[in-house]
C-alpha cells in the first residue's frame, strides 16, 4: 500500500518496478530475508549456483573477458569474482551513430558466501563461451557416506 505513495504516475520505469514488486508480492519473495550480498537483477555478471553432493558449482555469465584478467579468490568462506571488461579503444566511436548501448563495460566485482562445508583448497575455475565456471569442492567430512551395517 505504502509503495503507491512512492511511485509517480506516468513513470514507465517505476511502472515496471511496481509490476515486478507486485510479482514478488504475489510469489511471496519480497520481505523475506535475502543474502546481505544479494544484488538487484541485471548485475554483471549474472550468477547461477548449483550444488552436488561433492561440490558447489558457480557459473558467472561474463562474456567477452580475457580469462587471464579474471580474479577468483576465496577468503574466509567468501568467493569473490572480479575483473574488468574492457571497452573499445577510444576513437572508435567517431563518425558513427549509436542506436543501442546496452552492454556493460568497466570493472566488476561479485561476492558470494559459500556454505561451511566448502573446501577453499579445492577450487577450480575455467572460462568457456563467456561463462566462468568455478567448482568448489566440499570437505571430505561433509560428503555423504554409506554406513555399513555389520
Amino acid at each position, binding site marked *: 500500500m505504502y509503495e503507491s505513495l512512492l511511485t509517480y504516475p506516468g513513470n514507465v520505469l517505476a511502472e515496471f518496478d511496481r509490476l515486478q514488486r507486485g510479482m514478488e508480492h504475489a510469489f511471496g519473495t519480497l520481505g523475506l530475508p535475502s543474502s546481505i550480498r544479494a544484488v538487484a*537483477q541485471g*548485475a554483471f*555478471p*549474472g*550468477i*547461477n*549456483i*548449483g*550444488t*552436488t*553432493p561433492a*561440490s*558447489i*558449482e558457480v*557459473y558467472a*555469465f*561474463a*562474456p*567477452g*573477458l580475457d580469462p587471464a584478467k579474471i580474479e577468483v579468490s576465496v577468503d574466509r568462506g567468501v568467493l569473490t569474482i572480479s575483473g574488468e571488461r574492457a571497452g573499445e579503444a577510444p576513437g572508435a*566511436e567517431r*563518425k*558513427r*551513430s*549509436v*542506436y*543501442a*548501448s*546496452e*552492454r*556493460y563495460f568497466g570493472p566488476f566485482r561479485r561476492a558470494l558466501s559459500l556454505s561451511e562445508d566448502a573446501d577453499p583448497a579445492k577450487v577450480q575455475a575455467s*572460462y*568457456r*563461451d*563467456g*561463462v566462468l*565456471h568455478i*567448482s568448489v569442492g566440499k570437505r571430505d567430512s561433509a560428503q555423504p557416506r554409506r554406513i555399513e551395517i555389520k
Partner: protein
Amino acid sequence: MSDERNITASERGPAILPRVDVYEDASGITMFADLPGVPRERLTLRMEGETLQIEGEIATDVPEGVQAAYAEVRLPRYRRAFTLSRELDTARVEATLKDGVLSLRIPKMEHAQPRRIQVNAG
C-alpha cells in the same frame, strides 16, 4: 537437449533478450550481442524477409546430479530479432562468436554507400 534443434523459434518458449550494442557508420551496421554460454553450434542466425533473428542456446557443462541453488540467468536460451532496412546487404552479413560475444557486420548495398557528388560548374 539436441533433439530440440529442429523446432521453430516460436515453439521453443520464453527466452532472454540479450543485451546489444548497435552502431552505424558510412558503410554499414555493426552489432555486438552478449550471449554468454552459447557455443557456435548452438547459435542460429536467420533472415526471414527483412527480419534478422538471433537465437542461441546456453550449453554449459553441468556435472551429473547438480541441483540448482540460486539462479539469475533463468532461461536456457537467448532470442532477439531486428528489422533491417532495404539498403542493407543481407547476403554479405559477417558474423563471429567469441567468448559469448556475437559480432555482426551488415554492410550496405554498394549503391547505398555515400558518394561524393560532383558539382559541375554551369
